C-alpha cells in the first residue's frame, strides 16, 4: 500500500488500512530509537517547520526529536500564542513558509481548522499537531500503536475514554480511529462535559464510569482543565475525582489485564491517582516513546520516499 496524502489533518479521511500502515511503519522506527546512534540520513536536506501557537512541551519535543532522528533540519518558529490582532496573520505566515520552500509544516493552534487552512495554502505537507477541539491525529495514532503493541489487534477490545469529552480533540480522534479499527469505544464523563451532540461519533456514551469498567481492555483518562470548574462545568475536583478519577481499585474491577493511558500532562490525584499512573498497568511512558516513533513514521510517509510525491 502506498501513502497518498499530502497532509495529515485528522483521521476522517484515513482508512483502517492506512492507519495500520502508519502503525507498521512506526514499528521499524521504534527499533531505531533504541540504537546507540539514533540518527538516520533518510531526510537529510529536508526542512521541517514547527509552529506551535499553543503551549506544548511534549508534543513539540516529540516532533522535533522525530524529525532530527530522521536527519531533517527542524526549525522552531516562534509564533504569538494568539494570532488575533497580534503579529502576523496565519495567511501571511503561510506565504512566508511557502517562500522558504519548507517541506513539512507541523502546526498546533487553538482554532479548529487552522491546520486545514494552512494545508490549503501550502504546497508543503502539513501535520496537525492539534487544532482547537477538532482533531489530534498524531496523539490518537500513538495511542493506537501503544494498544496494538499490547493486543496485536483491535477487534473485540473495549476502550473507555473518560473525562472532558466535549473539549477534547484527543477523545474525538481516538473514538473516530478506534471505531475504524474495530474496537468498541465508550465515552464517559459528566453530562456537562459529554453533551448529546457528541453522539455524532457513533459510539456509546455513558455518565457512569463504574458500570462500564467490567470488561474494559483499556481506560484512557483525559486531562481535566481546572478552569472548567470556574465556568460551572463541574462543581469541584473532589466530586469529579469521586465519580471519574481513575484509581487502582477501580481498574481492578475490569477483571482484565487492563492498560491505562493518558495523553499528558497529568493532574495527579484528579483524573488519575499517582499510584495508578506509576503502576505496571500504566502505559503512559510508553505512549511518550511511541509518540516519537509514530511521528517519525508520519514524517517519513509524508516527505520521505518518492511514493508520496504529489502531482
Amino acid at each position, binding site marked *: 500500500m502506498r501513502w497518498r496524502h499530502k497532509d495529515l489533518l485528522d483521521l476522517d479521511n484515513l482508512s483502517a488500512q492506512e492507519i495500520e500502515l502508519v502503525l507498521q511503519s512506526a514499528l521499524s522506527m521504534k527499533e531505531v530509537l533504541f540504537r546507540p546512534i539514533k540518527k538516520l540520513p533518510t531526510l537529510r536536506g529536508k526542512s521541517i517547520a514547527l509552529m506551535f501557537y499553543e503551549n506544548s512541551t511534549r508534543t513539540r519535543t516529540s516532533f522535533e526529536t522525530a524529525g532530527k532522528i530522521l536527519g531533517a533540519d527542524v526549525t522552531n518558529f516562534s509564533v504569538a500564542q494568539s*494570532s*488575533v490582532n497580534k503579529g502576523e*496573520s*496565519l*495567511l501571511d505566515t503561510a506565504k512566508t513558509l511557502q517562500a522558504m520552500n519548507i517541506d513539512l509544516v507541523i502546526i498546533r*493552534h*487553538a*482554532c*479548529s*481548522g*487552522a491546520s*486545514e*487552512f494552512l494545508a*490549503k495554502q501550502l504546497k508543503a505537507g502539513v501535520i496537525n499537531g492539534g*487544532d*482547537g*477541539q*477538532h*482533531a489530534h491525529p498524531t496523539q490518537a495514532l500513538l495511542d493506537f500503536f501503544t494498544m496494538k503493541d499490547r493486543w496485536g489487534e483491535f477487534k473485540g477490545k473495549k476502550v473507555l475514554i473518560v473525562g472532558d469529552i*466535549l473539549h477534547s*480533540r484527543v477523545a*474525538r480522534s481516538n473514538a473516530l480511529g478506534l471505531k475504524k479499527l474495530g474496537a468498541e469505544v465508550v465515552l464517559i464523563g459528566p453530562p456537562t462535559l459529554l*453533551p448529546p*451532540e*457528541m*453522539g*455524532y*461519533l457513533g459510539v456509546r456514551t455513558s455518565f457512569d464510569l463504574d458500570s462500564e469498567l467490567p470488561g474494559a481492555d483499556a481506560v484512557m483518562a483525559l486531562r481535566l482543565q481546572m478552569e472548567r470548574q470556574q465556568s460551572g462545568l463541574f462543581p469541584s475536583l473532589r466530586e469529579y475525582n469521586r465519580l471519574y478519577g481513575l484509581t487502582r481499585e477501580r481498574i481492578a474491577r475490569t477483571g482484565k489485564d487492563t492498560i491505562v493511558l493518558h495523553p499528558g500532562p497529568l493532574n495527579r490525584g484528579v483524573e488519575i491517582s499517582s499510584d495508578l499512573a506509576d503502576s505496571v498497568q500504566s502505559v503512559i511512558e510508553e505512549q511518550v516513546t511511541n509518540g516519537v516513533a509514530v511521528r517519525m513514521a508520519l514524517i517519513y510517509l509524508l516527505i520521505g520516499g518518492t511514493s508520496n510525491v504529489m502531482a
Partner: protein
Amino acid sequence: MLWLKNVHLVDPGQGISDKASLLIKDGKVAKLCRGEKQLTEEEVLMTLGVSELKDVKQVDGEGKFLFPGLVDAHVHFREPGQEDKEDINSGSRAAVRGGFTSVLAMANTQPVIDTRALVEFVRLQGERAGLARVYPVAAVTKGFQGRELTEMVDLQKGGAVAFSDDGLGIQSAETMRLALEYAKLTGCPLISHCEDTSLAGQGVMRKGEASARLGLKGIPASAESVMVARDALLAGETGGKIHIAHVSTKESVWVIRAAKKLGIDISAEVNPHHLLLTDEDVQLTNSSYKVNPPLPSREDQEVLLEGLLDGTLDMLATDHAPHTWEEKMRPFAEAPFGINGLETALAALWQELVLKDKIKPEKLIELWSLNPAKRFALQGGTLKAGSPADMVLFDPEWQERVTAESLESKAQNTPFLEKELQGFPIMVWVGGKLVMKNRKIVEKQ
C-alpha cells in the same frame, strides 16, 4: 416619463399577479392597466401630459416580472467608521443591484448612531449616493451600553424609522422594558437582536452534532429563543411595538406564533441564509458560513419556512453584513460573524425556493416589499396609482455566476461566491429614476 409594457406585475398590496402596463410620471405611478388590455397611445399621451410618444421612454417587459421595489429591514452599511468593509455608497449600489429600493441601515457603526447628528449624516449620505432610499435605524441605548436610553424623539425627527442595538442583545430586561415604554412616543418599532450572551458564550456556530464534529464552540438555540420569549412578554405587558430581527430557531417561531395569538404587537424577519443553509453546511476553512445568529439545524429551517408561509413571520431581510477579505481569511473561530447578502439574496431564494415551488412569487414579494414597508411605515411596498415608482424588473431566466469582481459591495463574504444563480433584477427604478440597467449601476451624469 416611462411606459412599461407587457410585464407580469406582482403586487400583493393590490392583490395583483397579472399581465400589466404602467405609466410613470414625476416619480410616481400615474396609471396602471392590468390584464391583456393594452393602453392606447392616446391614453398614454393624455395621462403623461405630453404631445408626442418620442418623449416617452418605453420598456417592453415581455417575459419579465415587475415587483414593487424590495424593502430590506436589515442591512449594515458600516459608515461611519468601518468604511473598509462597506460604506453607504457601496452598500446602496449593492442594494439596487440586488433589487432593493429601500433599506434600513443598522446603528452598530463607529460611533454608533445614537444622536440626531449621526442619524442625519446617514440619511444625507444615502441621499448623496442617490440610489436606494436609506433609512437610518438609531440605537436604543447610548453607545450600545445597554443602560441609558437614547433621545428617541429627536432621533425620529432626524429620520430614524426604528430603534435597535442590533449587533448586541439588550441583556437587561428592565432596559428593554423601559425602551418599549418610551418608544411609544415615536410609534416606531424596536428591533430586537435576541441573543443572551451568557448562553451564547464564545460560541461560533449552532450547538449540535455539526459543531461537535468540527470542534467549534456551539451556540445553543436557547441563546436566541429565551430572549425572544422575554421580549414578546415585555411587549405584551407594556403594549410596546417589537420587531424580532433574524429569527433562526423553531422555538422562536413557536413563541412568536403564541404572542400573535395573544394580540401582542410583534413582527419578525427571517434571513435568506437561514432558509437556504444549515449547520451541516459549515466548513472549517470558509468563514462565509459564520454568521450570527448561526446557521440553523435542518429542523429549525423547516419551521422557519412554515412560519413565513403561515404569517407567523412577517418578512424577509438580508442582514447584509459585509466584512473585509482579510478579516474573513482568519481561522473560523477568529473571523467576524456576517454574510454579505444584498446582491445574492433574491436570486438565491428565487432559485432554491420559488423555482422549487416552496414559495410563490406573490408571497415572496409580500414578505420582502409590502410587509416591511407597512411595518416600518415607509413609502413603497406597492405600485398602486400615486405610489412612488420604486420598481424592479426581474428576469426569472437570467443566470449569473457570483464573482468577487461582479459584486458592487466592497466585501465578498458570501457563501454563494463562485456559484451560479438564476433569477436576477435587470432594471431598477427608485422614485421613477432608473438606477440599475442590465445588471449595471446607472452612473450619475
